[in-house]
């Protein structure tokens, strides 16, 4: 049990900390990957993930705080803490370090290119997040319909009849 918990915490940190450093455009850029990994790892079901997404959006703070709920379901309160710290701390430290060297590259050709080059990647990641959650939500065009139907749907992981 103890080992199991430790392994899960490590897995959560290993999954979310790298995403933190690639969340260009804002932390919602990671939603798609968090969805794919959380379900593939069995940390949460598709049904719960879609609901967690909604809960986190209804609550104050970043929508990506849904990782706290994923971590909590995977490994209790420790999981929630590890998931949250993993998703937010690396990026916060990185920007803090960058601020210390800010004066040297502000307004440079590099800085402008980075901003312009990252914008479309961020846009693609946001759209991916929308697609990922749409797939997990019931009743959408990508999913088919009601959850009263038999479980184990190939595309949304839950009670769809139409998708195949």
């Amino acid at each position, binding site marked *: 049990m103890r080992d199991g918990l430790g392994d899960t915490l490590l897995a959560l940190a290993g999954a979310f900390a*790298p995403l*933190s450093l*690639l969340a*260009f455009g*804002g*932390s919602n850029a*990671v939603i*798609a*990957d968090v969805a*794919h*990994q959380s379900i593939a790892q069995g940390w949460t079901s598709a049904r*719960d993930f879609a*609901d967690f*997404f*909604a*809960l*986190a*959006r*209804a*609550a*104050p*703070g970043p929508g990506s*705080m*849904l990782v*706290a*709920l994923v971590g909590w*379901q995977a490994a209790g*309160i420790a999981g929630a803490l590890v998931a*949250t710290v993993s998703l*937010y701390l690396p*990026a*916060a430290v990185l*920007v*803090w370090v*960058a*601020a210390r060297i*800010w*004066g040297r590259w*502000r307004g440079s*050709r590099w800085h*402008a*290119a*980075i901003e*312009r*080059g*990252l914008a*479309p*990647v961020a*846009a*693609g*990641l*946001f*759209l*991916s*997040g*929308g697609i990922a*959650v*749409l797939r997990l*939500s*019931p009743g959408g065009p990508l999913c088919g319909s009601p959850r009263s139907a038999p479980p184990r749907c190939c595309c949304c992981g839950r009670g769809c009849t139409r998708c195949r």
Partner: protein
Amino acid sequence: MKRANSAEASATEGPQAACVPLPAIFAAFFVIGATSFGGGSIGWIHREIVVRRRWVDDEVFLGTLALGQAMPGANGIKTAALIGDRLHGAAGAATAVLALLSGPFAIVLALGAAYARIGSLPLLHSVLDGIAAAAIGLTFATGLRSLAQGAPGPVPLAIAAATMLCVGILRWPMIPVVLVLAPVSVALAMFAPRRA
């Protein structure tokens, strides 16, 4: 002393930052975090820190936003870290980030606990599905808006489409996709400079 150096070293840092006590920083950012519904904490930070408390001026605030745009991470967190640093050095940065996150963290977990208790109610799922639908729409809108804001053109469109195809449709892991596409995109922006 670090701060005094940087304040005089760089014109971008604006006027001398006050050394705001940590409890005051915590209180301010905690309130911002716990009330920033819809994730729009940047606007709240501006209102509370720049307009109401006048801890930093607009120039500093916009400077932190500009830096944040070139860096990964949640926008509110990045801004909190940078403004906290201005207000009380590294300890201020840590305090601001902790304060900004702790409210939403507790609230989200409380909602999760409530969800675990009454999660079997069909009505709850309907409510959450409605919220999710609205949030998904907003997510798409944000993606499209940030696409329109960057230099629109065939290359950025192709990069955005490739990102969406790989991560969103094919469900490839985000890390290798971004590690390949982001440098390519930045290089293209670098070598084909266009005024947006």
